[in-house]
C-alpha cells in the first residue's frame, strides 16, 4: 500500500507558507484601515492552522518524494490552495458563494484573470491586492517558490519543479542545484515586477494601482482594480509600459536570468523562441491594423494602432487586461487575438497556451513529414536553436498538443450542453485553458463570468487548472493507472 502521508506532509508545509503570504494583504489592510482585515484575519487563522495540523499529523511519515508523489503533490496543491485563497473573498463578500469565490481564487492563482466580481473600484485596496498577489505567486509557481525557500523537499524538488514549470524541455536547468534555479527565477521575477511597478508609477498611476497592476502584468494575470480594466486610466504611457512588461514577462524567465547573471544580451540572441515571438506579434499588429482600418473600427489610424497593439500583446501573452471592448471588432479580429493566446507565450514564461516552443516543434515536425514523403531516405531531425529535439520530447509535444485540443473540444461541448451559446462556450474555454481571462460573447472584456451558472463556473475552474499545469500533471493524477498498485 502506497503511503500518501509524505505528500500530505509536504502539503501541510505549503499551506502554512500560503497562510503566511496572506499577511501581506493584512498589513495593507491594517495600514489603510480599509475594513477588510477581519476577513483576512479569519483566512490566515484557518489556513495556517489547517496547514499546521496536517503537517503535525503526518510528521512521523516524512521521506523523500518519489516521482508519482511529485505529480500528486503539485496537482493537489493547485486544487486545494484556491480553497484557502477564496476564504478572504467569501468572508468579505458573504453573498458570493463558494463556487464563485473558488473560481475567482483559481483565476487568481493560475494567473488567468477571469473575474466574477464587479464593483472593483469600490472594493478595499487589500482585497484587490490579494487578488493580484495570487496572480503574482501563481504566475511563477507556488511550488517553485517553496522549492526556492525550503530546500528540505530534497530530491523530490526537481520532480516537482518539472511538474509545475511550463516548458517542453523539462530536463534543462540553469544551475546544478534545483534550489538555486528556483531562487534565480524568483529573483529575476521580483526584479522585473519592481521595475514594472516603478514604471507604472512614473507613467501616472497612484502607488496602490501601480502595485496591483505590476503584480498582474508580471504574472501575466489579468485582474485589475477597476471594472473597466486598464481602460479606466485611458493613458497612452500606461499602456506602453504594460505592453513592454507584458512582452518581457512573455519571454522565458530563464533567458532573463542568464542575461542578468552574465550581464550580456547574448542569451536573448540565442533564444530560438524570441524571433518568432516578436515576429508573429509584429505581423499580427500590422495585419490587424490594416484589416480594422478597412472596416473603420476606429476613427483614425493612431487609435487603431493603439488599440490593436495593446490587445494583441495583452490577449496573446495571456495577460488579459483590456482598454476597449474588442468584441465590437469584426469576429475575425477577435478570433485572431484569442487564437494567438494559444501559442505566443514562450516556454518558461508566466504566460499560457501550448507555448511558442511547442508550436515551433509542431511546425517543424509537419515540415519534416513533408520532406520525408518527398525524400524517403532523408535524415531530417527537428532542430531548435541548432540542437536536435529528441524523439521522447517530440512525442511528448505531439501528445500534449493533441490533449490540449481534446480538452478544448470536450470542455466546449460540456459548456454548450449546459446551455451556453457556442461562441461564449468556446471562447470561455480557450480563454481559461490559455489562462488569458476575457473571452468573447457573454464573457467578453466588457462583461464578466458572473453570468454563468455554478456548474459552468466549476467546469471553467477545472479548465484553468488544467491549462496552468499543462494538462498532463493533472491528467496523470486523474487516471486509474496512477492509483493502481
Amino acid at each position: 500500500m502506497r503511503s500518501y502521508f509524505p505528500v500530505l506532509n509536504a502539503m501541510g508545509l505549503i499551506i502554512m507558507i500560503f497562510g503566511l503570504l496572506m499577511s501581506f494583504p493584512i498589513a495593507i489592510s491594517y495600514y489603510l484601515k480599509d475594513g477588510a482585515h477581519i476577513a483576512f484575519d479569519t483566512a490566515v487563522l484557518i489556513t495556517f492552522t489547517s496547514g499546521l495540523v496536517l503537517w503535525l499529523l503526518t510528521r512521523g511519515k516524512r521521506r523523500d518524494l518519489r516521482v508519482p508523489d511529485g505529480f500528486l503533490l503539485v496537482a493537489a496543491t493547485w486544487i486545494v490552495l484556491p480553497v484557502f485563497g477564496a476564504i478572504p473573498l467569501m468572508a468579505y463578500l458573504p453573498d458570493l458563494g463558494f463556487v464563485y469565490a473558488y473560481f475567482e481564487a483559481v483565476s487568481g492563482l493560475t494567473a488567468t484573470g477571469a473575474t466574477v466580481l464587479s464593483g472593483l473600484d469600490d472594493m478595499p485596496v487589500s482585497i484587490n491586492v490579494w487578488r493580484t498577489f495570487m496572480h503574482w505567486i501563481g504566475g511563477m509557481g507556488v511550488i517553485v517558490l517553496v522549492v526556492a525557500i525550503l530546500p528540505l523537499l530534497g530530491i523530490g524538488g526537481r520532480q516537482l519543479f518539472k511538474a509545475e514549470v511550463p516548458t517542453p524541455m523539462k530536463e534543462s536547468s540553469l544551475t546544478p542545484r534545483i534550489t538555486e534555479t528556483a531562487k534565480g527565477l524568483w529573483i529575476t521575477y521580483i526584479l522585473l515586477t519592481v521595475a514594472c511597478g516603478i514604471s507604472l508609477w512614473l507613467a501616472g498611476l497612484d502607488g496602490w494601482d501601480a502595485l496591483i497592476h505590476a503584480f498582474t502584468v508580471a504574472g501575466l494575470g489579468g485582474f485589475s482594480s477597476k471594472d473597466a480594466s486598464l481602460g479606466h486610466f485611458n493613458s497612452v504611457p500606461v499602456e506602453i509600459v504594460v505592453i513592454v512588461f507584458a512582452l518581457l514577462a512573455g519571454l522565458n524567465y530563464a533567458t532573463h536570468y542568464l542575461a542578468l547573471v552574465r550581464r550580456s544580451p547574448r542569451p536573448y540572441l540565442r533564444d530560438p523562441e524570441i524571433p518568432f515571438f516578436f515576429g508573429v506579434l509584429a505581423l499580427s499588429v500590422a495585419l490587424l491594423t490594416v484589416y480594422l482600418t478597412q472596416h473603420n473600427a476606429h476613427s483614425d489610424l493612431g487609435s487603431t494602432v493603439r488599440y490593436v497593439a495593446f490587445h494583441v500583446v495583452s490577449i496573446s501573452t495571456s495577460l488579459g487586461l483590456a482598454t476597449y471592448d474588442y468584441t465590437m471588432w469584426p469576429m475575425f479580429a477577435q478570433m485572431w487575438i484569442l487564437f494567438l493566446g494559444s501559442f505566443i507565450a514562450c516556454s518558461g514564461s508566466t504566460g499560457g497556451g501550448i507555448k511558442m516552443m511547442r508550436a515551433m516543434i509542431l511546425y517543424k515536425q509537419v515540415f519534416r513529414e513533408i520532406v520525408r514523403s518527398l525524400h524517403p531516405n532523408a535524415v531530417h531531425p527537428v532542430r531548435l536553436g541548432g540542437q536536435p529535439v529528441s524523439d521522447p520530447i517530440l512525442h511528448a509535444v505531439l501528445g500534449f498538443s493533441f490533449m490540449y485540443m481534446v480538452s478544448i473540444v470536450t470542455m466546449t461541448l460540456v459548456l454548450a450542453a449546459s446551455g451556453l451559446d457556442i461562441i461564449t462556450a468556446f471562447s470561455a474555454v480557450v480563454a481559461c485553458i490559455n489562462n488569458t481571462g476575457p473571452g468573447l460573447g457573454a464573457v467578453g472584456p466588457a462583461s464578466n463570468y458572473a453570468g454563468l451558472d455554478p456548474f459552468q463556473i466549476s467546469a471553467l475552474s477545472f479548465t484553468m487548472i488544467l491549462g496552468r499545469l499543462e494538462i498532463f500533471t493533472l491528467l496523470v493524477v486523474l487516471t486509474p493507472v496512477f492509483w493502481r498498485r
Partner: protein
Amino acid sequence: MKIIILGAGQVGASVAENLASEANDITLVDTSAEHLELLRDRLEVRTVCGNAASPYVLHDAGAEDADLLIAVTQSDQTNLCACKVAKTLFNLPTRIARLRSGDFVDYPELLNDDNFAVGFSICPEQIVTDHIKRLISFPEALQVLEFADGVVSLIGVRAFAGGPLIGHPLKAIRYHMPNVEVRIAAIYRNGEPIMPEGDTVIVPGDEVFCLAATVHIRQVMRELRRSDQPMRRIMIAGGGNIGFRLARSIENDYNVKLLELNPRRTEMLATQLDRALVLRGDSTDEKLLENEGIDETDLFVALTNNEEDNIMSASLAKRMGARRTLALINRKSYVDLVQGGPIDIAVSPAQISIGTLLAHVRRGDVVAVHSLRRGAAEALEIVAHGSEKESKVVGKAIEQIQLPRGATIGAIVREHRREDGRLVRHEVIMPHHDTVIRSNDHVIVFCTHKRLVRQVEKLFQVGFTFL
C-alpha cells in the same frame, strides 16, 4: 635537410614521398608498425614506431638535430603536444602541425612559442574543401590554383571542340582577347607536355594550363570551350570531414544533397547543416540516386574515404545522367584511368594539401607550391630578393635568366607600395622576353617536371658566392 614526419597516414605518406625524392633525410613516426613497413619498402625513409608525442620517440627519431617537424597525425592533441615537446626539449627550429579543428585557430595565442609552439598549422580537409569549392565556381576547369593572395590564377582546362580558340595557333589569342593578358603555361597532349610556342595549335582534348589575372579567368575559359550552364544542383556522396565541410560552405549558394551511409553520422550532419538535404543511403544505390533526381544533377561529387567507391559511384552517376562528376582519387594510376572518361575531375587530396606544406620545406622565398597533374608538374610562387649583384634574377631581363628547359616564367606580380610601406595595389605583368625582374617581385614559375623545381629554387637564392 633533416625532416621528421609524425603520422604515416595519407598526408604523411605523400609528404614523405614528395620530399624523399629531393635528397632530404626523412624519418617517419607512426604507431602502426605494418604501416611503416609498407612505406619503408617503397620510399627511402627511416621509420620509428611509437607515440608521436612521446619525448623518447622524438629523441629516437632524431629530433635533436632535425631542421623541420611535420606533425600530421590524425589527432590534433598529439600534433600539438609533439610540437611543444620538440620545442621545449629539442629546440627544433620549424614545427608544422595539422589541426583539423578550427577551435585552435580561433585562439592564435595558444599556438605561440610560450604555449603549444606551433610554427605553422595546416588543415588538409579545409584546403581540399576550398579547392573543390573553387572548382565548383569554375565548373569547366580541371584545376584552379591561386597565387599572390588570389590576384593571379592558374587554370587547367580541357580544350573542347567548339571553343573559339581551338584549332588556331596560340598567337591568335591576342586578337581574340585584346584586353586580356593571358599566358599559356603548358599544354599536355595525350599526357605528354608540349612547350607552347606562338604557332602551337590547340586541338580538342588538350589539357591547357593558362595563367591570367583572376578577374579575367571566366573570359579566358570561354575561349577554350563553350561555357557550361552554371551549377545549381549538387549531390555529394560521403559525409566525412571533407563532405561535411563542403556541404556547409556551399549549402546557401547551391541546392545540395548529401549522401551518407552511417546512421549516426547522418544525424550529426543533419543537425549541423541548415539547408542541405541529408540522405541516408549508399552512394552506389541506383534506386536512391534515381529517386533523388541524379539525371537533373549538375555535379556529382564523390568524397568518401574509399577511392574505389568514389570511382564507382561517380561513374554510375555519370551514366545515370549527372552532368559532371568529381571524385577524390589519390592513386595516380587510377586518375589516368578514369579522368576524362566517366569522371570529369579527379582531385587528389594528398597532392593538394601538401602544396602548402612544401612551401615551408623549400628553400628561398617560396610562397606557394602547387602540384599540377597529380604531382607531375609544379607551379611555384617565388619572391625575388637581393640586389642585381647578388641575385641571378633581379635586374635581369627574362631572356637573360638561365632557366632550365621545361620551366617558364608565367607571370610576375609586382607590389606597389606607398612611401610609408602601405600596399597600394598589385600589378599583374605577363612577362615578355625583355621584361626586367625587380626585387620583391612575386614570380610565378611553371615547371613541366618536378625535378626542375630544385634548379629553379637555386636560381632564385641569393648567392653568397658573389660576396
